[in-house]
């Protein structure tokens, strides 16, 4: 087992770094931002979420394309259900259902 001091230091460091990356920008003053900024910020959520979600389904962490797998395939029914029903619960249910079905049949 690693030394206790080392583990405590690791948790403390990670806590400080994680919290700072989340808290610092939240305290920025945003009352009078230029118009360009206000236009750009509208696209931030869609851009960030597209960037962290879809590529993770297609590629491994080292940047190589993955073989077709259940995570990838189950994303298709999720997207369709999300588009047509606009319901979070139905989308998630479709995703888990499709994932179980694909893993069982492959």
């Amino acid at each position: 087992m690693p030394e206790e001091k080392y583990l405590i230091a690791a948790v403390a460091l990670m806590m400080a770094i994680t919290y700072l990356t989340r808290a610092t920008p939240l305290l920025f003053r945003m009352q009078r931002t230029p118009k360009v900024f206000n236009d750009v910020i509208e696209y931030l959520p869609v851009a960030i979420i597209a960037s962290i979600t879809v590529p993770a389904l297609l590629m491994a962490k080292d940047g190589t394309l993955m073989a077709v797998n259940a995570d990838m395939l189950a994303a298709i029914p999720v997207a369709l259900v999300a588009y047509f029903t606009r319901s979070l619960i139905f989308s998630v249910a479709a995703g888990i259902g499709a994932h179980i079905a694909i893993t069982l049949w492959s």
Partner: protein
Amino acid sequence: MTDLALQPVWRKESFFDALPVITGYFVVSFVFGVMCINAGLPLWLPVAMCVFVYAGAAQFAALALITSGAPLLSIAVSTLLINSRHMLMAMYMAKQSEGLGISKTQKLLYAFGLTDESFALHSQRLQGRKYTPPGYLLQFNTWCHASWIAGALLGAVASDALHRFSQFKLDYALTAMMIYVLVSLCNSRPKLVVALVVIATTCLLNAFFPSPLNVFVATAVGCGVGLCLKKST
């Protein structure tokens, strides 16, 4: 202190809104707890990490580093790189939370619970112009954090139950939820184009330089494209 959040009115709504996150977090942190115990770490470590750090990807990366006895500096750098994307999310929330009458204390509390998944659902709610008091946001994060901690604790305690538990792909709830949010955020042609540009850019960057910082470059490219589309219409 009365405005600090946690008014019971928002307890129920935020719980049901957060349900996919609660389920997914529980399963993922359960696995985290099991892995920590299997790696020979003490029971308090996964619990402390989930209470104090509360960052999924960074915790799994740190687990691998800790078990290989990596220096603290590399744990710090890995945490910083993986979590740097939260700066973008926090910036967005800083701008959008202005109209919500959020206090500084509430912002500091909110920052602790800002994760990929809470950001996804909160930004979607804010873009839908739904009434969102700070109490709702904080209550939402509290549910998610509680299930994250509970999962790690139970996983660590019952580490041999992993095999029976992992058959259920409940952690796919998180991926499904992110796809749902992505689809519902693409509610206009420019936004759809931005999403596609960002996906292509991220994949391309990952293929040549795999790095957690690629999300910054891809987001900048995507927002730039969005801005051009907006100007030309």
